C-alpha cells in the first residue's frame, strides 16, 4: 500500500526532527513516504478562529491534491503527523461528508481552482499506521538495540485522540505504549497523558500556558520517567524548549528529555543520530542502549 505524507508547517521548522525521524523509521519499516506536492496549511486552530469555511477550503485543496497524486482509482491514505493538522484535516474530512451546505460551497471554491475532491481519502496518524498496519513481529524484528530499562512516559496530548480519532481510546490511549513495549522499553502509568500542554498559550500567555506544561513534566518526573515521548510538534516544543523557563519560574529543576516517538523508535532500530534529528534536541537524550549494563529489563513484556 502506498502512503502519502502531509508534513504541515511545523514539520518544516521547529518540528524538523519529527519529519526526519518519521521518514527514517517508516523507511526502515518498509513504508516509503511520498510528500504531498504543493500542500498548503491545514487551516487549523488559529486559522479556524477567523474563518471556518476557508479553513475547510484549505483542507479540501490538500484532499484534492492528494487524490490526484495518490491515484483516483483507489483510496489514498494521507499520513498526518502533526496533531493540529491531524485534527484540522480530520474535522474538514468529517464536515465535508456530513454537511451538504458546507460541501457545496467548498466544491465551488475547489472548482474555481480546477480541483475536485471525491471522498476517496483517509486521514491517518503515523501512530495509527505503525500500530495497525505494521505487524507486531515485523516491528519486533527491526529492533537491534532494545530499550531495556528505559522508562517512557507516553504523551499523546489532546488533538490526536480528541474528538475525531477512532484508532485509539480517548481517555486512555495505548498505541504508543504498545509500540514501546515491542521495542523493549517500559512505559509508566501517567493518567494525564492526554491533558493539554497549553498549545500556543505557552507563547502568547506564558503565565497560563507554561503552568500546563510544567504540571505534565512534574508528574512524569515524579512517576519515574526517564524521558517523554510525544507525537505532536507543538507538544514537543512546549515540553522541551521551555524547561529552563519553567525551572526558574516554579523553583523546581525540570530536566527531562522530550523526544518524538519516532526518534525513540529509531534509536531502538539502530538508526543514526543525524537520521533521527537527535542533535536538534535541547535536552539531550542520555540513554545509550547497552543491554548488558542496563539495570532494568525484568519488567519488559511483549
Amino acid at each position, binding site marked *: 500500500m502506498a502512503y502519502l505524507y502531509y508534513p504541515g*508547517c*511545523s514539520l*518544516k*521548522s*521547529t*518540528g*524538523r*526532527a519529527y519529519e526526519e525521524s518519521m521518514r527514517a523509521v517508516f523507511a526502515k519499516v518498509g513504508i516509503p513516504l511520498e510528500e504531498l506536492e*504543493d500542500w*498548503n*496549511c491545514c*487551516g487549523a486552530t*488559529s*486559522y*479556524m*478562529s*477567523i*474563518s*471556518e*469555511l*476557508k479553513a475547510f*477550503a*484549505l483542507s479540501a*485543496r490538500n484532499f484534492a491534491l492528494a487524490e490526484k497524486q495518490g491515484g483516483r482509482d483507489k483510496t489514498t491514505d494521507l499520513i498526518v503527523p502533526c496533531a493540529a493538522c491531524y*485534527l484540522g484535516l480530520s474535522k474538514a474530512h468529517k*464536515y465535508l461528508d456530513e*454537511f451538504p*451546505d*458546507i460541501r457545496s*460551497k*467548498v466544491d*465551488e*471554491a*475547489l472548482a*474555481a*481552482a480546477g*480541483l475536485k475532491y471525491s471522498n476517496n481519502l483517509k486521514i491517518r496518524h503515523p501512530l495509527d499506521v505503525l500500530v495497525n498496519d505494521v505487524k507486531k513481529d515485523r516491528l519486533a524484528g527491526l529492533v537491534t538495540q532494545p530499550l531495556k530499562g528505559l522508562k517512557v512516559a507516553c504523551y499523546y496530548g*489532546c*488533538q490526536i485522540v*480528541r*474528538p475525531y480519532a477512532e484508532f485509539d481510546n*480517548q481517555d486512555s490511549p495505548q498505541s504508543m505504549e504498545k509500540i514501546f513495549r515491542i521495542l523493549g522499553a517500559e512505559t509508566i502509568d501517567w493518567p494525564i497523558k492526554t*491533558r*493539554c500542554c*497549553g*498549545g*500556543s*498559550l505557552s*507563547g*502568547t*500567555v506564558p*503565565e*497560563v*500556558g507554561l503552568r*500546563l506544561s510544567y504540571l505534565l513534566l512534574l508528574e512524569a518526573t515524579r512517576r519515574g520517567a526517564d524521558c517523554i515521548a510525544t507525537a505532536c510538534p507543538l507538544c514537543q516544543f512546549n515540553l522541551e*524548549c521551555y524547561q529552563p523557563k519553567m525551572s526558574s519560574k516554579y523553583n523546581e529543576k525540570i530536566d527531562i528529555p522530550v523526544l518524538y516517538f519516532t526518534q525513540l523508535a529509531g534509536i531502538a532500530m539502530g538508526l543514526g543520530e543525524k537520521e533521527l534529528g537527535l*542533535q*536538534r*534536541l*535541547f535536552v539531550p537524550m542520555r540513554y545509550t542502549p547497552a543491554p548488558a549494563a542496563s539495570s532494568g529489563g525484568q519488567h519488559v513484556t511483549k
Partner: protein
Amino acid sequence: MDKWREWPKIRYESELDPDFADQIASIPGGEKLFTCIQCGTCSGMCPLSPDMDYTPRQIIAMIRAGFRQEVLSSHTTWLCASCYACTVECPKEIKITEIMYAAKRLAIREKVHPKRFPPSVLARAFFSSVEKNGRSTESRVLIDLFLKTNPLGMIRQAGLGMKLWLKGRLGPGKESIKRTDELHRMLAVLEKEHMIKPKVKTAQHGEAK
C-alpha cells in the same frame, strides 16, 4: 493574571440580545446548545478554567441568556486551547469547543474581540500569513505577534530564537506554496460567506466598549 477578570454584569432583559443564542447555534450541529443542563462538566474538564474570565459553563449560560457583548469581548474564548476535553465529556453532546470558535469568529467579524490579547493577535497574524502564502512561516508569525503585543518580550525571547536557529529549527526564510494563485482563487469564492448566520435584530446594548 486577574486583569481580565470581571464579574458577570447584571443586565435587564431589555439589554440582552435575544438572537444571540440562535446565531451561535447556527453552526453545524450547534442546536444542541439549547439542551445544556448546566452540569459544569465542561468547566471541570477544562484545564484553562482557572484562568478564564468566565468558565465554559458560564459562557454557555450567557450565550443562551443573550449576554452578547460580554461573551464576544471575553478572554475565555481566546484562552480555549481547543483541546476538546469538554466536548468529548459533555453529557448532552454540545460542541463546546466549536461554540468557542464560533464566538471568536463572530467577535472578529464585529471587531469586538480583545484586540491586544496575544492569542487573538496570533490568530490574525497566522491567518494573514496563510491567506497570502498558503503556509505559515513560524518565525515571521512570531515576530509579528511580539511586535504587536510585547516588543520588549521579543528581546527576552531572542536567546530561545537563537538556540532554535542554531539547532536548525527556525529560519528566516519565507514558507510558501507554489501555486498561490490557485489558492487565492479558491478563497475569493468564500470571501463573503459565513457559517454563522447574520444578526437579525439590532441588539439593545446599554453601552458599547
